[in-house]
């Protein structure tokens, strides 16, 4: 029986050959999966593509633009034609992903099917739709572009996502190894061993499913060397091996990102390693050759053929032509023969022999050689040279340089001390030389990582071997397999003026696809050099950028850990059906069902509100008064112990930044409150001044926002309620007056702060109690106030009441341009102070005039509540202000608003036009006072 017949017999695994010494499949463990709905069999250890190839499949996708059939090119993760859909996961690298039982694999990019592909009509039109063609057409009429666009979108490459996919389980891990070795080939394994022997803790990361690199699919001697290295790695207690894991990038400070994919129950894990030293040992990537028909299924790299043969025992074809320019090509020819594949011809590029074109309908059937002869075959293997994947070196600052003799870009000499390289990216040599170089490099890495002097380590030299420069044959072929860009496209674009690497790649999209240039860049550069008559060195290359492999959003995000802040009283709020509102980092009660009733409770009896989110900063030290005097626009040098004061803060641009009260609690001790949303910003603001401008001031600031639970007790009966729970503070109006602060015991909880202020306009006490007692104090207050009709109120009721009182809310009633003057607090600003933040700008503001004013507006129709953000307009519709706050006031039984208006409108009694979002206009009048309720403030001073 002929080889071909033997190979083709024995379906369904017709290309599976007899056992190979290094094979990674377990023939005792068959696995079933489906491919486009049809059942397929495989063995454990097979990748999706090796299993399909074993069953005789040759086409796995269609190319992006011309919809040409695509088969195996590299048989590695980066195989451009082998991305498939697995269940709801798009763009799975079929040449890398292992088959599992029941897996549902479908082809991507085939419309309507892999075999019958209507879009391949594009191929006939190929000559008209070269790179960048869309820039030149669909120009007119422009209204048709959306239609054209929909057609183009149809051809978008890639798989599908679905709206009901679960988020999945992802994770992160931090690691602090002494040395990370990126790449687990012979040099990388040896480097890990060298580093471990020298005392370092090592993390060895390998992209493939097991260690070994090219030794895995090598000769018997190479397999023996690998077995020895594996034994040593296993025996070492200091090497953590991560397989099926990729170092995706290196960031400042040797911050190494590793995507780990070999964990049970976790789809992917992002390992972030702060490595003292990183050793790059990624080996070499074999590069494709450019000639007509180089993308036909059946044309593949020599490493692909050897991987198929030796790892998965799959015959890549039945009758082969081998184009060889190096030992790898020769070894492939030998392996093919050995496995029973007929090698029809070896084309030796070192002797000037050439492959000119490949032909075939759907897949390869014939190869034309340089001398015009034709050889029929179904497999063409090319071995024309290598690319050094220098990503880790480039991101560390090293620029690749072109080595004419070796015909490849090699590392420059710009590496920092904490990055070393070994193996193929450095140079070529037999296994022993790679291992020796790796071991020495590993030892040097350990010396550096452990901060020893390291002079004892000499690293043997390893340099790239000479290699013929083979990039393109006499014919044109595909350069970028994922983007479907041919050398002809590149030449044409370069002639058109896109003649630098950067412009060329942007115009044609060459190198922009899933492999990000790993297979394509060098040929792009070579073709550009040819087209422009420059050398490859002059043309230069683009630098490699992270991530080395695409990283899932899931892995980057990790577990979902969005923090939420709740006050200690949250269980009570939930039990009492509070409607929650998201307020920055906090979630807090908006109301408990009926805000208007809550307002009445406060105005008539007594109400409690949870104001824990209020920013609270503890300030200590002799220079606090100076700090306050600088931060606020008003004066702070004299504030008696036991008093609080309201203050307004402006930025250096004079724009209102925050407001709140600060109390003088004791000797050199203050408590500042800020708005809820401004707490962090104010803390940063203070820290910034103290560290940069006033480093000699003695001030200690501690954010206390979450250390205290804060409760405001408001209403005419609040003193009565307080007197029932506070024992050690004299609450009489004379002893504890408005704008004073006391420390004392509330509901037997000592160490509480209480101050008398009133955002609601009622007699009220703001209590700050140690957070752990918050819920207890809250419940105790309610219990104590039961016979006083005490109730609770939420944010909404508070907003209504403060609006009735005309109190502004920073960033609602002010905006990014609202400076200090004009918001009803002019009297507060003391320009005669020596200096304070924003002083200069406020002086100018006053001089200049013309700024907007905050006014209270009363709609003529008291039942109309203009939505906030309604604009105030003139007769010709120009904007002269806007409503910033607006509510129906239960206390007044009418609508009331605050508005920022142009100065000419800021006059009592002025009638303005408010333009509502529904398009109608209403009239409103500017009120005399900002406060509509108790403008004299008698209630809160009671």
């Amino acid at each position, binding site marked *: 029986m002929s080889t071909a017949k033997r190979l083709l017999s024995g379906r369904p695994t017709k290309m599976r050959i007899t056992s190979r010494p290094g094979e990674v499949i377990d023939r005792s463990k068959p696995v079933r999966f489906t491919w486009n709905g049809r059942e397929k069999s495989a063995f454990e250890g097979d990748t999706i593509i090796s299993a399909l190839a074993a069953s005789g499949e040759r086409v796995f996708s269609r190319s992006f633009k011309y919809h040409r059939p695509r088969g195996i090119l590299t048989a590695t993760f980066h195989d451009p034609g082998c991305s498939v859909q697995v269940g709801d996961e798009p763009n799975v690298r079929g040449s890398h992903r292992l088959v599992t039982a029941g897996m549902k694999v479908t082809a991507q990019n085939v419309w309507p099917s892999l075999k019958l592909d209507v879009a391949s009509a594009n191929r006939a039109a190929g000559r008209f739709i070269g790179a960048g063609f869309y820039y030149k057409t669909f120009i007119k009429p422009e209204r048709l572009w959306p239609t054209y666009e929909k057609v183009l979108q149809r051809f978008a490459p890639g798989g599908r*996502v679905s709206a009901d996919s679960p988020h999945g389980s992802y994770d992160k891990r931090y690691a602090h190894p002494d040395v990370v070795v990126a790449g687990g080939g012979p040099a990388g394994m040896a480097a890990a061993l060298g580093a471990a022997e020298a005392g370092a803790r090592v993390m060895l990361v390998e992209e493939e499913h097991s260690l070994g690199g090219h030794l895995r699919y090598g000769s018997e001697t190479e397999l023996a060397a690998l077995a020895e290295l594996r034994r040593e790695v296993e025996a070492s207690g200091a090497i953590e091996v991560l397989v099926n894991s990729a170092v995706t990038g290196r960031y400042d400070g040797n911050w190494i990102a590793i995507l780990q994919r070999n964990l049970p129950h976790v789809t992917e894990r992002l390992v972030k390693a702060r490595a003292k030293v990183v050793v790059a040992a990624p080996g070499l990537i074999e590069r494709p050759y450019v000639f007509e028909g180089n993308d036909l299924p059946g044309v593949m790299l020599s490493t692909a053929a050897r991987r198929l043969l030796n790892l998965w025992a799959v015959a890549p074809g039945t009758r082969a032509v081998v184009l060889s320019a190096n030992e790898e090509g020769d070894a492939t020819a030998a392996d093919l023969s050995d496995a029973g594949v007929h090698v029809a011809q070896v084309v030796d590029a070192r002797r000037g022999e050439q492959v000119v074109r490949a032909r075939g309908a759907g897949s390869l059937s014939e190869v034309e050689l340089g001398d015009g002869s034709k050889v029929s075959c179904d497999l063409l293997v090319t071995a024309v040279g290598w690319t050094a994947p220098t990503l880790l070196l480039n991101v560390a600052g090293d620029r690749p340089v072109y080595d004419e003799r070796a015909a490849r870009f090699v590392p420059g000499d710009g590496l920092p001390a904490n990055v070393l390289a070994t193996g193929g990216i450095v140079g070529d040599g037999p296994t022993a030389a790679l291992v020796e170089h790796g071991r020495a490099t590993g030892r040097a890495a350990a010396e550096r990582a452990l901060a020893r002097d390291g002079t004892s380590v000499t690293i043997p030299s390893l340099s790239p071997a000479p290699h013929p420069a083979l990039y393109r044959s006499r014919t044109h072929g595909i350069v970028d397999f994922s983007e479907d860009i041919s050398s002809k496209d590149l030449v044409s674009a370069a002639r058109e003026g896109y003649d630098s690497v950067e412009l060329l790649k942007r*115009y044609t999209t060459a190198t922009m696809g899933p492999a990000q240039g790993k297979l394509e860049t060098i040929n792009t550069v070579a073709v550009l050099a040819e087209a422009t008559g420059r050398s490859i060195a002059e043309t230069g290359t683009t630098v490699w950028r992270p991530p080395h492999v695409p990283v899932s959003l899931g892995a*980057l995000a990790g577990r979902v850990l969005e923090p939420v802040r709740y006050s200690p009283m949250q269980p009570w709020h939930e039990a009492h059906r509070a409607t929650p509102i998201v307020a920055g980092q906090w979630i807090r009660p908006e109301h408990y069902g009926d805000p208007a009733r809550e307002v009445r409770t406060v105005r008539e009896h007594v109400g409690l509100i949870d104001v824990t989110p209020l920013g609270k900063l503890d300030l200590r030290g002799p220079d606090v008064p100076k700090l306050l005097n600088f931060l606020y626009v008003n004066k702070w040098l004299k504030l008696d112990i036991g008093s609080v004061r309201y203050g307004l803060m402006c930025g250096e641009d004079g724009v209102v930044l925050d407001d709140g009260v600060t109390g003088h609690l004791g000797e050199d001790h203050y408590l500042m409150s800020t708005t809820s949303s401004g707490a962090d910003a104010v803390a940063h603001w203070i820290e910034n001044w103290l560290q940069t401008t006033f480093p000699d001031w003695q001030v200690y600031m501690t954010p206390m926002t979450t250390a205290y639970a804060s409760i405001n007790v408001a209403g005419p009966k609040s003193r009565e309620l307080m007197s029932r729970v506070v024992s050690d503070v004299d609450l009489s109006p004379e002893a504890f007056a408005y704008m004073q602060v006391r420390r004392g015991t509330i509901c037997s909880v000592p160490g509480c702060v209480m101050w008398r202020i009133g955002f609601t306009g009622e007699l009220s006490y703001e209590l700050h109690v140690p957070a752990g007692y918050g819920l207890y104090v809250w419940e105790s207050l309610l219990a104590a106030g039961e016979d006083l009709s005490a109730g609770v109120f939420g944010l909404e009721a508070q907003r209504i009441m403060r609006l009735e009182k005309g109190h502004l809310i920073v960033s609602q009633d002010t905006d990014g341009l609202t400076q200090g003057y004009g918001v009803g607090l002019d009297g507060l600003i003391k320009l005669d102070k020596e200096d304070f933040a924003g002083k200069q700008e406020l002086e100018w503001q006053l001089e200049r005039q013309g700024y907007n004013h905050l006014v209270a507006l009363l709609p003529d129709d008291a039942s109309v509540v203009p939505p906030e953000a309604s604009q105030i307009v003139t007769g010709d519709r120009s904007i002269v202000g806007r409503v910033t706050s607006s509510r129906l006031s239960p206390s007044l039984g009418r609508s009331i608003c605050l508005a920022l208006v142009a100065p000419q409108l800021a006059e009592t009694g002025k009638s303005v036009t408010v333009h509502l979002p529904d398009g109608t206009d209403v009239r409103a009048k500017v009120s005399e006072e900002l406060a509509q309720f108790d403008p004299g403030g008698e209630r809160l001073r009671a």
Partner: protein
Amino acid sequence: MRRATRAGGAPQRYSAASLFRHGLTHEDWERVWRTVEMRRSYDAVVIGAGVHGLATAYYLASNHGMGNVAVVDKGYVGGGGSGRNTAIIRSNYLTPEGVRFYDRSTRLYENLSATLNFNVMFARRGHLTLAHTDASVRTMRWRAEVNKLEGVESEVIGPDEVKELVPFMDTSTKTRYPILGALYHPPGGIIRHDAVNWGYARAADSLGVEIHQGTEVTGISTDRGRVTGVTTSRGAISAPVVVNCTAGWASLVATMAGVRLPIITHPLQAAVTEPVKMFLHAVVVSGSLHVYVSQTDRGELVFGASTDPYASYSMRGSLEFTEELATHVLELMPSISKMRVLRQWAGLCDITPDFSPIMGVTPVDGFLVDVGWGTYGFKAGPAAGEAMAELVATGKTPESIAAFDLARFEEARLVGERGAAAVGH
């Protein structure tokens, strides 16, 4: 080969017919722009071959007949922010000045393919700015009201309508930052940024403008308060007008003329995923989550965020950026966790105190600026170029850019766009 005499003559037309002819004959296309010797003097020198510099040069030649202009760039055409941005075009800004200005630009973009005879692929996909807090609902309503009064289509919509426009969006109330509504701006969309840059370059070149890549300005010469020219890495050029269109490098270049600009340069990062079949039609922005996302015709998701928090001229991407980005994107669309980030990059943004640009004259006569474009300047290219060209040609500052003058920082007439420009770009 190269037709250097073409300047002033009609350029080769791009159309389906010419594409067809070319397909048959395989003749080379005419060069997009010429490579010519740099001369010693021009009527005007524009520094920076980004969209602003190129548009300025194009409108100088096309609207004012001033073709004797050189655009010089230290790198290549579109190598700065103009080739690195996420290409969102919209006009739903916050201030009337801003809305009017960006609206003019959007209208120029609408016809730009035909104007330049280069398909810039402007896709009006609709633009959604999500509101997750009642404060942002208020800001959205504010923007919508200003927009409508200025004649720009813009409205506040609720979560259900958001879901209809973006079926992948989690609009449930169970998320950490529930979506309370969105500002919907139907005319907003995305464009092919490189095409805009190349289209302007090609059209300007055909009108006589010279584009000199790889030419770095190292000094700006002045004489008694007037600009007289520039020195470059390839020799000196004299010119009575020099326009600074260098975005992230603008303050460095202005310093060469002795002009200080209130600009701080921050890196801004972006990333794309591998392509998947179209599922996201609209452009989605979330200010609270510091992220925005759109899907290109090729199927990639393009992500952006807010600027890096520190000042820097470095254009490296960071891991933290992609981590945060992914967290926030999945917060919005949890079902796309299996999509993978393919590439990340950074560009430089010239940020001003009021998040608005600086256009017009400087204390040095003849030295003009069109800078401060921060994170939002790509969409402004056409309108800014048009106005700057008018200023160069007439010596008068057009009304449309008067509010954006440099003097406003001394006279405190800021144009506050922080609320609309920060993450929205």
